[in-house]
């Protein structure tokens, strides 16, 4: 019986192509929508991605990664004194304006001041130069996008050794790093904590974060609780920090509505195109299905046949859709587009496609159940 169903399906190539196209298009839209959603979320906590630390300690009022509330200089020592803390390092995160020497357009940057002695939280993917050169003179490490954006102004690429101005102070490029892109298009410039203080307007409290690692063999959750209890500050793992930031985005930005609309449209298109085409396909075959029923095919067998047809359409359409999106993502410049294809996305889309196909199958099965086998005797 399944063979009959499959031959009925594959035999009508135009309808089969239409069915698969509908599912494929729905898969592409939903995958793209969800990838966009996670991509934008990823952009929102890019700083926590670019600065690697097991534990982040921030002001208790901080709600998201981009919120750089100043801490007291003494807080770093207070954190160090918490049992279970292996090391704690100060971090500065703030904004600055970069400008080429001799004039030209300015470029907003996110300035990162790493602990001068340990360079804790330094970027891990250094394309050119050496991270240790941060300690020399006016050395800074810039992200690769900074080079590209400056090139748009200068006409030629900046290189290691070149000098530019940041808030009217000289900075010399000693390295280029590959880092995740943040919201708003600002690029990253890394320097030491001490020199960061020179680049930004003087403030009473300069430190914005304390980066922490728990001692070896010590569980992280008790350390987080101890830091909070002993200092009154907020202590979070990297994952918690990102999740908190993502939740803040979900609550306070229009992103969920925009993405929800895209995913919803994908779902409706899938349901509308595939569901309706499948229903029409079954309707047009009602006489043949009636003949099968007359010849003794039970409702159960015909139901399984239709479900099999719907499942095949779903699998093929989903497979092509995910394949197309994977190919699309693979040719995108890394980290530039706010698209992240998490492994969970195909699973979510697959569940939605299954829902679409099963809804189409259920409606069709209902229609077929109404077909009397005696229909075949009518002229």
């Amino acid at each position, binding site marked *: 019986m399944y*063979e009959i169903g499959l*031959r009925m399906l594959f035999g009508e190539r135009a309808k089969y192509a239409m069915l698969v196209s509908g599912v494929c298009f729905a898969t592409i839209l939903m995958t793209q929508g969800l990838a966009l959603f996670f991509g934008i979320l990823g952009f929102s906590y890019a700083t926590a991605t670019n600065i690697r630390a097991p534990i982040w300690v921030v002001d208790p009022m901080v709600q998201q990664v981009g919120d750089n509330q100043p801490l007291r200089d003494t807080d770093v020592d207070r954190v160090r004194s918490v049992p279970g803390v292996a090391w704690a390092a100060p971090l500065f995160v703030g904004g600055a304006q970069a400008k080429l020497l001799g004039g030209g357009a300015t470029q907003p940057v996110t300035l990162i001041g790493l602990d001068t002695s340990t360079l804790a939280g330094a970027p891990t993917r250094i394309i050119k130069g050496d991270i240790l050169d941060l300690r020399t003179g006016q050395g800074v490490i810039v992200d690769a996008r900074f080079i590209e954006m400056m090139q748009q102004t200068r006409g030629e690429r900046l290189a290691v050794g070149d000098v530019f101005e940041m808030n009217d102070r000289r900075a010399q490029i000693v390295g280029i790093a590959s880092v995740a892109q943040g919201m708003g298009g600002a690029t990253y410039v890394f320097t030491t904590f001490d020199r960061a203080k020179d680049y930004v307007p003087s403030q009473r409290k300069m430190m914005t974060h304390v980066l922490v690692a728990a001692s070896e063999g010590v569980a992280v959750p008790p350390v987080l609780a101890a830091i909070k209890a002993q200092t009154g500050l907020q202590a979070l793992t990297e994952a918690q920090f990102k999740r908190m930031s993502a939740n803040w985005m979900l609550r306070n930005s229009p992103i969920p509505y925009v993405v929800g609309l895209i995913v919803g449209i994908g779902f409706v298109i899938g349901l509308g195109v595939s569901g309706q085409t499948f229903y029409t396909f079954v309707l047009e075959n009602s006489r043949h299905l009636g003949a099968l029923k007359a010849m*003794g095919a039970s409702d159960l067998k015909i139901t399984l046949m239709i479900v099999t047809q719907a499942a095949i359409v779903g699998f093929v359409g989903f497979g092509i859709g995910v394949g197309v999106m994977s190919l699309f993502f693979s040719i995108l410049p890394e980290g530039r587009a706010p698209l992240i294809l998490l492994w969970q996305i195909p699973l979510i889309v697959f569940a939605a496609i299954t829902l679409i196909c099963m809804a189409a199958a259920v409606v069709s099965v209902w229609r077929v159940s109404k077909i009397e086998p005696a229909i075949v005797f009518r*002229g």
Partner: protein
Amino acid sequence: MTFDVINEETAIDVRGVGKSFSNGDQSTLVLRGVDFSVRRGEVMFIVGPSGCGKTTLLSILCGTLRADHGEVHALGMPLHAIPQPEVTQFRSKNVGFIFQQFNLLPTLTAAENVAVPLLIQGVPLAEAVKRASRMLASVGISEKSGERPNRLSGGQQQRVAIARALVHEPPIVVCDEPTSALDSASGHQIMKLLSEVARDASRSVIVVSHDPRIYGYADRIAEMEDGRILRVGESRHHVLN
């Protein structure tokens, strides 16, 4: 009018069968207490003008439609009383169908179409197609087994339909206007073939037709009018008339 008693010679026995169809508030009485029987091994024609209820009667006696009242026994099974799934199972094993419009699945080859009743019974595809090919050879179109219906003439399609009706060796074969979609010569060829391959001592062939040119192929003919059987007689009387 003749009445047969239910015995081993009777394949189908219909007693007091009535059927009406409703369309909104209106109800149309199609069968009015039909009594009728078909013997094993005979070719029985049901004839009459359009709208007299012959197709409805055919549908009821082969179990594709339930009567509103009356009894239908087929091969000893009380089709009027058993649950629908059992009727469906009965049809799959015991009834072969030949339809007016052939009703071949357009996306299947001739052999695959013939194999459908076997596939419904759960016979594996390869075995079913093998048996179907043998059946196609017996109706004289083995060379067309790989062709799809749209590549076959009307006569060839009806041969495929005959092969499909017989492939699972059913004791009852029902034919609804088997020649109405064919020209005269093809119609005679099909009826000749049907008489040759379907005739069996234990098989009953029931043909609904209003084509008097083929009445000569019947053993008996039941005449219907206004939802009733007027009379049942030997075919030669109708041919002579």
